[in-house]
């Protein structure tokens, strides 16, 4: 099945969603996802961050779809043409979604444990505007303890339902759900009952914001001062494959391993997460690979050693000098919006130079 996303055509299996196809191409064209979570069944379709424009439904029926469609739950058809980052309407709508998600979000990033690995932060940096037009009061909730190790700070919640699906699908009994309606809806354990389950800690990992946090790690450190290390242990309950987060020699946090989209690879048990906080409990495998754009990687990992990602390589291979001795003044050349240009070229400084050099080297090798 062939699908074209932002003018890049890719071959995918039938049943693939637009989002998955876009992720195959690369992060530059992949729509953001705040609620969709691949390991969780039935997730997606709620946050509307991944809305894209389908300009041709399929080879057979090339009519455009009338509304923007959620790419995370819409399956591709053969010959489908999708516009994501090149469509004005999509980008405008996405700005609106950022604004909606931030309306009732407290923006207490300076004191939030999630800051630095927060999907909402990334999302609003990439797609939002700098100011809010919201002058009214924000809704607030009391903090709740879900058992001895998890804290729910509902005020920060964006109601993605990921933790609800986790509690439903990973843990055995259903005591975790949503109460009330509309912007007063709240995540709750019926009612304030502790989630007494060996896998309950996974709700912390799936939370895209700082609404569910690890009480054993709360306020201990900023995530960009810690060093993630892959490790494993012989665990009876789970796979035992985790990421340890070090401050100096001390393990201050244990989480499940995540892929480049922030999705948990294998869910881990509470014993691994909350109790095994000594290096002696673990077999160390090596440093965790962290995406270069992440704040966690700041000044730690040599940028020039990272192979440019697909879209960057594509851009480099297609690079042509526009001043090749012809008159281009008659051509209607559309400049890339400046924000996008900035995303393609890393920020100034040593690592930026190294990054550009690595792209050029790669292009030269070709």
């Amino acid at each position, binding site marked *: 099945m062939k699908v074209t996303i932002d003018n890049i055509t890719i071959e995918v299996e039938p049943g693939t969603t637009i989002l998955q196809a876009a992720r195959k191409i690369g992060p530059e064209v992949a729509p953001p996802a705040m609620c969709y979570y691949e390991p969780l069944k039935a997730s997606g379709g709620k946050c509307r961050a991944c809305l894209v424009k389908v300009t041709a439904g399929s080879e057979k029926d090339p009519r455009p779809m009338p509304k923007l469609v959620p790419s995370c739950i819409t399956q591709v058809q053969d010959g489908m043409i999708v516009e994501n980052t090149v469509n004005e309407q999509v980008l405008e709508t996405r700005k609106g979604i950022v*604004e*909606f998600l931030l309306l009732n979000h407290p923006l207490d990033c300076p004191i939030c444990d999630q800051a630095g690995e927060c999907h909402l932060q990334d999302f609003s940096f990439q797609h939002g505007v700098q100011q809010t037009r919201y002058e009214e009061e924000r809704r607030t909730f009391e903090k709740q303890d879900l058992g001895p190790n998890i804290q729910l700070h509902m005020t920060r919640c964006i109601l993605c339902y990921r933790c609800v699906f986790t509690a439903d699908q990973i843990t055995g009994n259903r005591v975790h759900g949503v109460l009330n309606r509309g912007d007063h809806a709240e995540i709750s354990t019926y009612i304030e009952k502790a989630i007494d389950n060996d896998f309950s800690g996974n709700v912390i990992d799936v939370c895209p914001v700082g609404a569910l946090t690890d009480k054993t790690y709360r306020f201990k450190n900023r995530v960009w001062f810690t060093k993630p290390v892959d490790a494993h242990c012989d665990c009876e309950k789970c796979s035992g494959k985790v990421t340890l987060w070090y401050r100096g020699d001390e393990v201050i946090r244990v989480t499940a391993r995540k892929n480049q989209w922030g999705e948990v690879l294998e869910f881990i048990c509470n014993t691994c997460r909350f109790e095994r906080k000594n290096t002696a409990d673990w077999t160390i495998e090596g440093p965790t690979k962290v995406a270069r754009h992440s704040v966690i990687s700041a000044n730690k990992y040599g940028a020039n050693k990272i192979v440019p990602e697909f879209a960057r390589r594509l851009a480099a291979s297609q690079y042509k000098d526009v001043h090749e001795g012809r008159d281009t003044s008659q051509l209607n050349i559309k400049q890339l919006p400046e924000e996008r240009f900035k995303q393609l070229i890393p920020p100034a400084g040593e690592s930026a130079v190294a990054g550009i050099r690595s792209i050029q080297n790669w292009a030269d090798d070709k």
Partner: protein
Amino acid sequence: MTSERPKILTDKTHIPGIETFDVYRKNGGYSAVEKALKTMTPDEVVEEVKKSGVRGRGGAGFPMGMKWSFLAKPEGVPRYLVCNGDESEPGTFKDHWLMKTIPHLLIEGMIVSSYALGANTSYIYVRGELMYVVRILEKAIAEAKAAGFLGKNILGSGYDLELYVQPGGGAYICGEETALLESLEGKRGNPRNKPPFPAVKGLYQCPTVVNNVESIATTSWIVNNGGDAYAAIGIGRSTGTKLISASGHLKKPGVYEIPLGLPVQEFIYSDEWCGGIRDGHHLKAVVAGGSSVPILPAAMLLKTASGEDRLMSYESLSDGGFATGTMMGSGGFIAMDETACVVKNTWNFSRFYHHESCGQCSPCREGTGWMEKVLHRIEHGHGSMHDIDLLVDVAKKIEGNTICPLGDAAAWPVASAIRHFRDEFEWHITHPQEATRPGAIFKGHMELV
């Protein structure tokens, strides 16, 4: 005069005791069940409904016969018919009236429709606030069952049907068909992402048809008199009759059965129907199809943009798109005279949608609350000029980007009120003291009829 009008749903409602089985049966009730089960195949019933051209009366106006023909029919999987009696649209009260006045008409329709679709279990989902209607329906079902019109082997035809009434929890969102199905399954009433549509995966993941009370009640007349007779009533693709819940500043508000194609002017001013606007006042604006549809100024409602008389039909009401038209919706006809404040009314509608948003998808969850708060500010004299454009922008960002139509329903009234009554919003902002005085009437530029 009145007797000439075709009556399909209201021809027996004046008979005393019509809510009981015996009276209903004596007046020709359940003849459609006898006719359908004894002389027609299910496909023939579907064909008659298709021929009639009857359109869904819940609001969307989708042709009912076509909806029925989309129903997937895999082997060995049960099919369901669900009747949507969760009527909670502000301004609409026709289903409530129909169910309490003549419950057997709905039950007869349910039997005929279930037979046509091959459903052996059917549900009537009734709005949670209407517990007394639930009791009326349950009593009527018990009577019908005792008379052999429900249960096993109905009238010796070999067709079985069990009919259940399920009260909802009182949430507006459960009137959305997939949220209704979730609620019926005992879950939180959150709308589902579509596709898959209920016709393929509906109740308990089985093929399901969800129809409005009025639509289903119509089917027994169609079976008795034929689809062509039904299609002869009405105008163009708007066939048959429609129940209109008229409310507001009218002399005779109430539920009326009108033949589609009736001029709006006649519906409002004729003594046969609403009898005009209350004495000494003039029509200012109308919400023609329940709170979700765009509000129109009186002049625009009575005449289309091309200067023709506007008719009570799906096509004529939506003539001109949202720029100069509105929608038939569920037939909640709210008339407002010059004493009504459009800003206050819009705020009130917004408050409703804020309260009823399920909170599943972000544009609706956050946007409805935002619009309500901004409108509250304008209405109470604390607004500023850029608030108006803000509202338009927020409405635009909600519209079309949500899982279910509640987002659209929340955005349209706000966007249309500003489109047609911008002056009044500006007056609230520039003259807050005047505008917030009790009984204040906007006397700015506006056409009254």
